[in-house]
């Protein structure tokens, strides 16, 4: 009877999970950075193809392959961002960083722009937004970050945890 009475005000009561299912708690924004940098790299490769003096067939083949890879990497940026935004960022995390939703949405839009066209600026913007997201994520976890150039082309600065 008391349970019935309380359940009528269930929406006023905080919920605590007693059954953890499989949340492993393993979230890492470095995967987002890896895919963002890879997307930019694919854009650079595609933009450089004209200068390579390839045959018509070889050129078409390279465009097809690198475009497919650009598509895949940009989608992975969006996928990994959605996981961290949707599964990890909640409660106190969002109170500390209320801009998380808008930033996640900007990454979605930037990822799509990289897929839809071929402009280096789109790739640079994607990396910049992901760096911002990465910094926000690590701050939520109480981990300090540093910015360092990635040791491979396109050699852009990336935010990484200072572990």
């Amino acid at each position, binding site marked *: 009877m008391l349970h019935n009475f309380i359940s009528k005000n269930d929406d006023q009561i905080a919920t*605590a999970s*007693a059954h953890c299912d499989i949340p492993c708690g393993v979230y890492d924004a470095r995967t987002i950075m890896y895919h963002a940098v890879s997307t930019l790299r694919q854009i650079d490769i595609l933009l450089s193809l004209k200068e390579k003096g390839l045959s018509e067939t070889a050129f078409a083949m390279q465009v097809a392959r690198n475009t497919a890879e650009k598509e895949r990497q940009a989608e992975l940026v969006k996928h990994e961002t959605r996981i961290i935004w949707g599964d990890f960022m909640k409660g106190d995390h969002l109170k500390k960083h209320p801009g998380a939703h808008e930033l996640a949405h900007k990454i979605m839009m930037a990822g799509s722009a990289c897929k839809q066209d071929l402009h280096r600026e789109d790739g640079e913007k994607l990396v910049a937004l992901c760096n911002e997201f990465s910094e926000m994520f690590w701050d939520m976890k109480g981990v300090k970050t540093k910015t360092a150039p990635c040791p491979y082309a396109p050699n852009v600065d990336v935010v990484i945890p200072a572990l």
Partner: protein
Amino acid sequence: MSPTLEDGDYILIKKPRSLRPGFIYVVNHIDLGLIVKRLEAIENQSAVFSGDNPASLSDTLLGKVDVRRITGCAVLAVTPKGIKRLKRI
């Protein structure tokens, strides 16, 4: 935490004056949010928790919890079958 607590049970918590292994606490876990677990041990300022169910997430996977994240001690459960006191194991 089954069979001690089942989905839909309500628990009454109080602010703990001290942390005692064997009792059930509500924790604001950094990755999992608000969870209810039984305190296994305290080491310095870190607490180790586990679930009552053998299939629960192990203390290794839960990780050590900063004691400042413990929000309350669960003292009573209000279930569809009635009220029960949550005892120390």
